[in-house]
């Protein structure tokens, strides 16, 4: 059974005199001064609490105290300043103009050395490579049209593989109401495209005559 700790009067007087010390230091000092290795820090703390010998600290900043960082400007630690991101810098994984990658939809994205129209201070922007090449060869894609991949291989970004079709033709080529253009064999693709073109012309003519 553990024995109660014996406290001697000179020890108690010392502890009370040092009640406002940080706890760890107080314990160290006590053990060194009185050679009491049998007293643990917890036991000493509990003694002080029982006797009401609190440190007087409650963890709050005293009212009207000066902040610790008063007058200092940020990046006052040279170690953090060395590696911290500076304004106007590029991310460490920035690739720069000429880089290409394949996005989640299978299109090839190219980084070109032109300012981003949505962020004019930038030096580069990313574009779809097939559209970029097509527009260099044939001018801007007209309003209401989009580029369709003819052979189904989106990594073939040559302008001859892409055709500007009206947006309305898309659902008639593929999807729920489409003719299965992408899934069809290569021999039938031109004919399917021709049928869809004719259908689109019919719809336009019908709309025109109705108006």
């Amino acid at each position: 059974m553990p024995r109660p700790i014996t406290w001697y009067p000179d020890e108690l007087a010392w502890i009370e005199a040092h009640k406002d010390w940080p706890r760890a230091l107080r314990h160290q000092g006590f053990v060194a001064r009185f050679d009491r290795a049998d007293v643990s820090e917890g036991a000493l703390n509990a003694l002080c609490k029982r006797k009401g010998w609190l440190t007087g600290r409650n963890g709050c900043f005293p009212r009207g105290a000066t902040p610790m960082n008063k007058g200092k400007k940020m990046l006052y630690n040279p170690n953090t300043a060395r590696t911290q991101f500076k304004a106007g810098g590029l991310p460490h994984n920035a690739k720069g103009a000429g880089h290409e990658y394949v996005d989640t939809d299978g299109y090839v994205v190219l980084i070109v050395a032109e300012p981003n129209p949505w962020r004019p201070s930038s030096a580069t922007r990313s574009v779809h490579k097939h559209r970029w090449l097509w527009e260099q060869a044939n001018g801007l894609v007209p309003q209401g049209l989009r580029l369709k991949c003819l052979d189904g291989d989106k990594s073939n970004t040559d302008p001859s593989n892409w055709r500007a079709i009206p947006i309305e033709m898309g659902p008639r080529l593929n999807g729920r109401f489409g003719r299965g253009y992408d899934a069809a064999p290569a021999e039938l693709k031109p004919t399917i495209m021709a049928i869809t073109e004719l259908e689109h012309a019919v719809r336009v003519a019908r709309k025109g005559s109705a108006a």
Partner: protein
Amino acid sequence: MAQDKLGDLDSHLFAALERLGDQTLDPKQIEAEVARSGAIIGVADQVIQNAKIKLAAATLFAIHGAKVQPMLPQIGKSD
């Protein structure tokens, strides 16, 4: 004059496209062309389906050889 190849179908389609694109048509003629083109589209869709089936049959024969020939009575017959 059997015009039953895909290329002939293409020429029909493009001819219909040109007729529709003609600017000199009056509304009645446009309607007539629209109706005719609608019918052409219907027939062309069926031709495409037919072509797909033929291609599938040819592919099967190319992969599996003479084993599947009893299932494909049209293979080997010329027009």
